[in-house]
């Protein structure tokens, strides 16, 4: 039984008084303990999909499809059940910890509030546990930090506090929304290593949203590539480099800098990234794709299995990548 099962999720958001669909037919599953990476450019809908799993859809948006957590549809949950689901079964790490932690409350209050109010722990028990988890995420002098305000901590420290807040209890699913994007490059890797380590030792499942392909491939078991509000490829993370099938995935891989052979100019993907709003009859990537043929502009490709990948591309089996 899968932990999370997203079935043809669609989200229509209100833009200038009209509802427009920005997430189209997104389906995937996450097994207990599995790490799933969702990658894509800005505006591809990866964050929106993640937030829908936490029950956070934009105001006045309309959601279609199902999101099942342990076979319970979260859109059908009563408000009590939803509060329980959020407070004890999932945890979320946000992109910018400074924006995601109430600036006028102390770190200690932030850490213990959930377990004291929602899970009925005693305050002293929660505080001693908070000291433990702060130590676990590598914060020195945790007793002192409990009395600090968020503005007194650096971004990397705050992100560690945010991670710590999710470790006080034992969630089944960790939702990480670009957890390292707002941090310094030097703290990024240590924070990511921390998340990965804690996730593996505790056996939590994770959905990790990022635009960093390398990072996703390094910490995840499976990768979903999203473009314009659709999933266009799903494949095991270890196959990302050698066996990805979609031209867009390949283009993304080519567009990132390499450690060796730096004489080459970086390859940019031509054109602008399409958003989920743009309406086309065919493949949404067709206008930027160098392999596009007539069928790509007229027919929407369905997801189909090729080798170890599932890919939505008409030409996925014609293109011989090793000759490129």
């Amino acid at each position, binding site marked *: 039984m899968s932990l999370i099962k997203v079935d043809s999720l669609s989200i229509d958001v209100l833009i200038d008084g009209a509802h427009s669909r920005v997430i189209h037919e997104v389906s995937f599953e996450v097994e207990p303990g599995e790490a799933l990476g969702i990658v894509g450019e800005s505006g591809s809908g990866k964050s929106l999909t993640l*937030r829908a799993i*936490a*029950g*956070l859809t934009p*105001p*006045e948006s309309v959601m279609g499809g199902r999101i099942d957590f342990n076979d319970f549809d979260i859109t059908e949950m009563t408000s009590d059940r*939803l*509060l*329980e*689901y*959020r*407070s*004890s079964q*999932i*945890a*979320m790490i*946000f*992109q*910018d910890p*400074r*924006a*995601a*932690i*109430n*600036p*006028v*409350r102390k770190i200690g209050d932030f850490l213990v*509030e*959930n377990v004291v*109010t*929602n899970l009925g722990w005693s305050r002293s028990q929660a505080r001693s546990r908070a000291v433990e988890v702060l130590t676990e995420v590598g914060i020195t002098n945790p007793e002192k930090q409990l009395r600090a*305000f*968020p*503005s007194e901590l650096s971004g990397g420290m705050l992100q560690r506090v945010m991670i710590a*807040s999710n470790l006080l209890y034992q969630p089944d699913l960790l*939702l990480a929304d670009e957890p390292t994007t707002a941090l310094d490059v030097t703290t990024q890797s240590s924070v990511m290593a921390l998340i990965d380590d804690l996730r593996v030792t505790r056996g939590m499942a994770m959905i990790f949203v990022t635009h960093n392909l390398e990072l996703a491939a390094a910490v995840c078991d499976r990768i979903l590539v999203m473009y314009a509000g659709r999933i266009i490829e799903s494949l095991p993370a270890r196959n990302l480099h050698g066996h990805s099938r979609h031209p867009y995935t390949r283009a993304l891989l080519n567009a990132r800098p390499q450690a060796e052979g730096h004489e080459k100019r970086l390859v940019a993907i031509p054109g602008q990234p399409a958003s989920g709003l743009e309406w086309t009859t065919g493949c949404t990537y067709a206008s930027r794709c160098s392999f596009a043929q007539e069928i790509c502009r007229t027919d929407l490709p369905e997801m189909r299995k090729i080798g170890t990948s599932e890919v939505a591309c008409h030409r996925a089996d014609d293109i011989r990548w090793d000759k490129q």
Partner: protein
Amino acid sequence: MSIGQLALRRSAGSRKSAKKFGWLGWAAVCVLSTFAFFGVFGAAVAPHDPNKIDLAYAYVGPIPGHLLGFDELGRDLFSRLLVGAQSSLLGPFMLVFFATLAGTTLAVVAAWRRGWVDALLSTGVDIAIAFPGILLAIILVTIFGASLPVAVLALTLAYTPGLARLLRTSATRETGMEYIKALKVLGFSDSRIIFRHLLPNLAPYIFAQAIVMFGYAVLDIGALSFLGLGVQAPTSDWGSMVAAGASGLLQGYPTQTIAAGSCLVLTAVSFAIIGERLARVWGVE
């Protein structure tokens, strides 16, 4: 502005707060503390009975023991000013309290629920703002009779919409912040997020607005009393004292009007200064 920048600005503000609040701010605090003291203890410290009439002393100027002289009925002016501080400040205080409570509630409900609730409340507020407060007061006084509670009620209805509109903007921005979403994901109930997290973050906006509003409230309650729609005789009140002194003004005895008017103006100006300085210190201009 991100919350991070705001936090930085707030902490930078607290370092410079003494400088930013300024001597003028502290002077205003002194003036208001004095008035507040008389508002509470005025009757106890007044040197004479403020309502004792002695027509023989009508319009007599300052004499030893009577610092400001006497009014048109021979009552001690200084004592009346001290005792009048109570009704002159209590009315505005109640007005500010109720209007802030109502305005904040409307703003938070609109910002939290969004959608049709927000649209309905915002439209209602826009309509209410178009309705003049003094006119509303006159209508209510006609129905319920002239008294301080009626004046307060009328002005509360007049003040609430403007405050609700101002605070709704801050509340909408604040509810859109990531930390509110983070708290939802942590599974907190709406009421807990609103009372424990949203309102403390809105507090600087609410207090700065309330203090500025207090200045206007003093003048408006004073104006209603001046028109005879607020505090009723024989209770002394600065607004009605300005009106009572008007006849003396024409006969060359301006002391009562000037003294009571000065108290009103000093109070209003002090509140305006403090409100503005606090907004600067808190970074919520």
